[in-house]
């Protein structure tokens, strides 16, 4: 609507006279001519043909037949949502869209995005992957790493450590692992004791350890552990399932040293063969110089044999025993996780789950809005342009009459 400007008194009086005339009221004699014109114009009003009136009455009585009632139930619901009295026009569809998004988010959250069926309380990331490569040739060195990463959440069930790669037949594999656990600061000491117990029962040993148990969040413990490689998987599993601790991250590394072992073995065999040859030469030597020279060479070969033997022994020990670097970090669990570590339902977990769902819902809604808003703006612009063009066309049609 254009901005209203006050009418001139003369115009206003004339309009009032017209209205009065049409309402059957007397008008000022000054406006008699205007009143007469008004009455004539009113009398020029086209009358409704009786046949048309009867037809219209019948159609309206029939509520325009079934044609006007072809709207589906869904469309009627939609119209009710759009009904002006219901609230702001955009609120209803926006609410409906938000509800749909929320339902999708809840479904995705509960089902874990189709990748698992764990309860919601256990939905923290716990992805483990493993890969290994043993190398194609004897001399090739290959390394593989397996990672298991878990969000810090003491209420999680005991997440297994990343799987230890299998040792292919005849390959010499050196394995190692880094495991990071989290627990309450007050439990650093007791869990450290459990670590010692686990290592002992797995026929391993603690190469070094450092335990700082202050009862505060700075409490921590580090361990350098060595266990038989055959027990590595079991040891990691037991460590990751220590009561009161949760896995923050786990990393397993493996390296194929078949080539190195083979090389050391060959060098040792060659040195031994050389020594035997030298001993035979020594047995047939006549001169003192020859004897002394051979003895000196045999001494050097003996050192080589000792060194190669030690290297081979070290390599074999590294294959037989795996090293585990364990870190135990004290941390205060968030509110809602201080009710034990069982898998049961608690109010705190419910609140946590609710917040989690809301955060995901907000994220999804944000993404949806990021898509919907530009599309909606373009649609609104196109719609506005179309409506404007149609209005102009209609007005132009009136001008042509």
């Amino acid at each position, binding site marked *: 609507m254009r901005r209203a400007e006050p009418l001139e008194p003369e115009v206003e009086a004339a309009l009032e006279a017209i209205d009065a005339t049409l309402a059957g009221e007397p008008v000022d004699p000054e406006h008699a001519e205007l009143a007469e014109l008004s009455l004539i*114009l009113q009398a020029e009003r086209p009358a409704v043909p009786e046949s048309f009136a009867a037809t219209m009455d019948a159609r309206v009585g029939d509520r325009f037949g079934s044609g006007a009632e072809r709207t589906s139930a869904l469309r009627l619901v939609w*119209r009710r949502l759009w009904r002006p009295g219901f609230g702001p026009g955009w609120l209803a569809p926006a609410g409906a869209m938000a509800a749909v998004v929320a339902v999708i988010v809840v479904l995705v959250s509960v089902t874990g995005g189709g990748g698992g069926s764990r309860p919601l309380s256990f939905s923290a990331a716990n992805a483990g992957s493993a890969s290994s490569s043993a190398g194609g040739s004897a001399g090739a060195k290959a390394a593989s790493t397996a990672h298991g990463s878990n969000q810090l959440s003491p209420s999680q069930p005991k997440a297994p450590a990343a799987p230890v790669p299998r040792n292919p037949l005849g390959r010499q594999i050196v394995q190692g692992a880094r495991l990071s656990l989290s627990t309450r600061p007050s439990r650093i000491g007791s869990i450290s004791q459990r670590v010692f117990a686990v290592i002992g029962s797995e026929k391993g040993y603690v190469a070094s350890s450092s335990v700082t148990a202050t009862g505060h969040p700075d409490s921590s413990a580090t361990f350098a552990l060595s266990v038989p490689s055959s027990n590595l998987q079991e040891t990691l599993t037991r460590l990751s399932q220590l009561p009161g601790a949760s896995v923050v991250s786990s990393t397993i590394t493996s390296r194929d040293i078949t080539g190195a072992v083979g090389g050391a073995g060959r060098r040792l065999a060659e040195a031994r063969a050389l020594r035997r040859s030298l001993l035979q030469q020594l047995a047939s030597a006549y001169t003192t110089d020859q004897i002394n020279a051979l003895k000196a060479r045999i001494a050097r070969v003996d050192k080589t044999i000792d060194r190669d033997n030690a290297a081979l022994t070290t390599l074999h020990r590294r294959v037989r025993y795996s090293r585990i670097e364990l870190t135990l970090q004290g941390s205060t669990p968030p509110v809602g996780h201080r009710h034990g570590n069982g898998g049961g339902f608690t109010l705190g977990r419910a609140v946590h789950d609710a917040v989690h769902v809301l955060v995901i819902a907000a994220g999804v809604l944000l993404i949806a809005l990021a898509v919907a808003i530009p599309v909606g703006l373009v649609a609104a612009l196109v719609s506005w342009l179309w409506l404007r063009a149609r209005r102009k066309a209609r007005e132009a049609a009136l001008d*042509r009459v």
Partner: protein
Amino acid sequence: MIELRAQPAPAAAGSTWERFEALYRDARDDVYAYVATLLRDPAAAEDVTALAFERAYRRRATFDRRRGVERAWLFGIARNAALDELRRRRRTAALAADPEDVDAGSVADGAEVALRRTAVRAALSGLSGREREIVALKFHGGLTNGEIGRVLGISETAAGSLLFRTIEKLRRACDATS
């Protein structure tokens, strides 16, 4: 004898259907008269009037009282339907037929009144489409200036001003004819 029509207020309460039915009873003749004046074709006016009421019936749930009275809303629908009809038929100013004049030559009318009416008809035919529309809305549709403004998308003052100018033009045309 010129009959003055009362303007019953549309039902304020009741179901959507009852309100629509009351609106139909109240505005059927007015809408037809308005459309017929605009199109100057009785047959087309019937079609457009029927279409307007059917559209209004389908959209009755979307009527918003805060945006005006139901009569203005209905006339807006009728206006769009009539203009669409004009567009479709690409009508020009030279139309085939004017509305049927059932009172032409009535013995009851005096010669002076008959002469005056003839002059008014001649003046009406000289109006532009917009001018004839506002005459139709006011004198045939029975709308107030405020309702006319809502139908045309202008202010009540602008509608009044447009109406006054049109009436003045008619008066001058009638005087010239006389």
